[in-house]
């Protein structure tokens, strides 16, 4: 069976969409060639990892601590001002990182890499629970997710699980072995949050072959892993639960050290049962909420054979005929909808970076919230919903319509002719009613807005 390759479908389903100078990939081989090459988008619009992010979390925490310590003294006003400057600088960093993420997607020739990054960042979803971590979520993706989307799954598991953003979000930093030195001295105990989500969400799925006992054992195994805002990741032997742990029938070394934790994570991440969960999630995300079992089985097989080589798994997906079913049942998530719209409009990457803060607030931050996807704030560690019904609600659709009618004129001057824009955005087979609507609208803005609102644009 040959693959019925279609550049438009490729750009919609496996990319960020079409644009004036982006007619869609030429072939599956071309998609995989880009993905196998250097990460050009990240080189063009770099986003620092956590250790390089400026201001650092330590600078901010020290400033906040200094202000608290000076309470009631004449210096407190000066220190409060200083802390405020750090807060502002962190907000600027967060905004710039967001805009760079958008600029990458809008200008890239390697759209699949952007989509994979969105997918895997959602698979290992984190959320900032304190102000200090708000500017560390994009750096988390830089550190733990993006380098591994075409690498090994087990490497991503280790990097994401041990990242301070994850350690904080899922409470690992407060988990202490009850029989460790610290646990005995201060009466601290286990927190199973990370262990549970690791098994349930990141590795095996809710129906996976593990029990509450495995969760507790894994939580004990993870003790010692914590973070310190001065030095970032840390391993503390005095917090580690003594003794060996047995997780899902395998006994891990009694040595309380980081290497034990890492090798246990790699061992868990390469178990054969992981393959089914990951394969199914990939197909649900990219192809259909009702995944074709043969497609899932094929991906799972490649995952097992290659020990979780994600380039090979991705290649298996885009090479499989079942991934190219013509019916588009998925809809673009709000973040992807915004990126794809700006891409279709041919917005210049530098114009995105130079967006005025007020425009960023009015046309990015708030609309994403109305559309149901507040930036970097999924409601739980299970990430964003996949089904179209969760997004295309009255409020969610109203948010998309308002954005489609209003944002383009802020971002592009002059706006393209809607009659041309239909072809640019939807490809050569644009539906007749959308073509008609684009040419019948009273203004350019409305014409553009109607094209972006059409299911033909939103469905992938």
């Amino acid at each position, binding site marked *: 069976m040959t693959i019925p390759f279609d550049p438009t479908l490729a750009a919609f389903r496996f990319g960020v969409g079409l644009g004036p100078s982006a007619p869609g990939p030429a072939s599956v081989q071309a998609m995989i060639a880009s993905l196998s090459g250097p990460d050009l988008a990240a080189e063009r619009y770099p986003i620092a990892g956590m250790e390089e992010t400026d201001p650092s979390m330590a600078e901010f925490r020290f400033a906040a601590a200094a202000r608290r310590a000076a309470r009631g003294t004449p210096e407190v006003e000066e220190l409060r001002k200083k802390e405020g400057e750090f807060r502002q600088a962190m907000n600027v960093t967060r905004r710039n990182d967001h805009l760079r993420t958008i600029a990458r997607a809008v200008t890239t020739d390697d759209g699949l890499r952007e989509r994979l990054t969105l997918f895997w960042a959602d698979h290992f979803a984190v959320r900032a629970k304190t102000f200090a971590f708000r500017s560390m979520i994009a750096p988390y993706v830089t550190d733990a997710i993006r380098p591994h989307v075409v690498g090994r799954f087990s490497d991503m598991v280790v990097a994401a699980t041990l990242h301070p953003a994850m350690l904080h979000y899922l409470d690992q930093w407060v988990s202490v072995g009850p029989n460790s030195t610290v646990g005995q001295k201060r009466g601290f105990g286990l927190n199973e949050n990370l262990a549970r989500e690791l098994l349930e969400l990141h590795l095996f799925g809710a129906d996976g072959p593990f029990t509450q006992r495995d969760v507790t054992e894994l939580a004990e195994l993870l003790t010692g892993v914590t973070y310190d805002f001065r030095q970032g990741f840390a391993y503390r032997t005095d917090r580690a639960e003594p003794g060996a742990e047995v997780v899902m029938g395998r006994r891990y070394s009694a040595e309380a050290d980081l290497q034990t934790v890492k090798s246990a994570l790699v061992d868990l991440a390469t178990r054969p049962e992981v393959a089914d969960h990951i394969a199914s999630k990939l197909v649900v995300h990219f192809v259909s909420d009702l995944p074709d079992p043969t497609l899932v089985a094929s991906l799972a097989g490649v995952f097992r054979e290659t020990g979780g080589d994600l380039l090979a798994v991705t290649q298996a997906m885009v090479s499989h005929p079942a991934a190219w079913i013509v019916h588009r049942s998925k809809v673009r998530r709000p973040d992807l909808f915004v990126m794809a719209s700006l891409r279709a409009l041919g917005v210049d990457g530098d114009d995105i970076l130079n967006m005025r803060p007020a425009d960023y607030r009015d046309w990015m931050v708030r609309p994403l919230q109305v559309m149901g996807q507040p930036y970097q704030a999924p409601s739980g560690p299970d990430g964003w919903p996949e089904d179209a019904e969760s997004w295309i609600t009255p409020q969610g659709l109203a948010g998309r319509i*308002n954005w489609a009618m209003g944002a383009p004129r802020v971002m592009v001057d002059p706006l393209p002719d809607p009659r041309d824009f239909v072809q640019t955005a939807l490809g050569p087979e644009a539906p007749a009613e959308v073509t008609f609507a684009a040419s019948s*609208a009273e203004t350019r803005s409305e014409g553009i807005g109607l094209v972006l609102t059409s299911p033909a644009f939103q469905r992938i």
Partner: protein
Amino acid sequence: MDRRAFLTRSLALGCSLAASPLVTPVALAQGPWDARLVVIVLRGGLDGLDVIRPIGDPDLARLRPRLMETAGLGLNDAWALHPGLSGLRPLWDAGQFGALHATSSPYRGPRSHFDAQDVLEAGTFPAGESRSGWLNRMLGIVPGMTAETAYSVGYEQMKILSGTNPYLQWSPRSELDLSPQSRRLLDLILHDDPIFRDAALRAVDIADTLFTEATSDAEDAGADGEMGMMMAPAPTRGHAGVAAFAAQRLRAETRIASFSLHGWDTHSRQDIQLNGALENLAETILTLRDGLGPVWDRTAVLCMTEFGRTAHENGTLGTDHGTGGAMLFAGGALRGGQVLGRWPGLAEADLFDRRDLMPTSDVRAAAGRVMQDLFGLSRGDIEDTIFPGLDMTDAPRLAV
């Protein structure tokens, strides 16, 4: 209507906007009952011991020496109200605001917000047992429900209402200001995709109702002269805006509304944090009452939280995640002016895990009983479908 017929009609009628469903408001069925239920999810873990203070319990001062420094409003010999809720004191006196104490959801896990909220909103145990929320399952029991019957207000995903039965979500900050021509063309491009078409129909309808009400309110204000000038406009922002919008829908076809309030996770400086959050809650409830007008008498407002907080105050003038707590309730359909529930005491041996207020009731039973009394739902439906496995034998009666 199939696509061909739709297009033909559009062309035949030209720009006749009346023909377009996106221009003509949809007629909505009446809800199946007259009573209203508002469930406010207090996310973060409300400290029931600080809000409804058991001043008659000899151990309270020992457990919370610093938090008790700010005086509460004495309700009777046993209870005092946190000063942040002083705005609700008149409702208490009128028998329209009260509390169920020493209650909790069945969640007894490691005190995680995520899991505890999951149990509270799913209404099932353990966490992750059900993907639907209990209010949504309730919608499935009664025939004649429409999407308009239940509203999730605000941007947040409310698990309590999510599920297969239709409900609507809207935030008062959403707007939809489209030219008639755009509406007609939107109708054309969305028509063949049912999810898009139905969502757009609803969105346009909600936006139009809001617009119509705003216009007629303004006209009323003009006609009433000074009276109208003195009336404060309904709030549109923040928690009060959410409450005003919910009240507006509840005065029409809607029977159930749910939304969240935040700010309850008071690990430190609880004296300041909780006060602000409670003032917001009081304003929310008063906005609901004002907006509901005569319907307030048929309304039950339940304020539920995922867990209570530790009985001991901690070293940073706060409290940590606990177990038992309080459910606050308000509305003319409920018997306020009282603190319900069996008090377990605060002596160390009486605490759950020797640290938290011991729950003596399942908060789901109280909610179930309210639905039984207000909506006439059968106990069997509540125990089997809405809250599977719940035993309502000792459920307190809140309804008037």
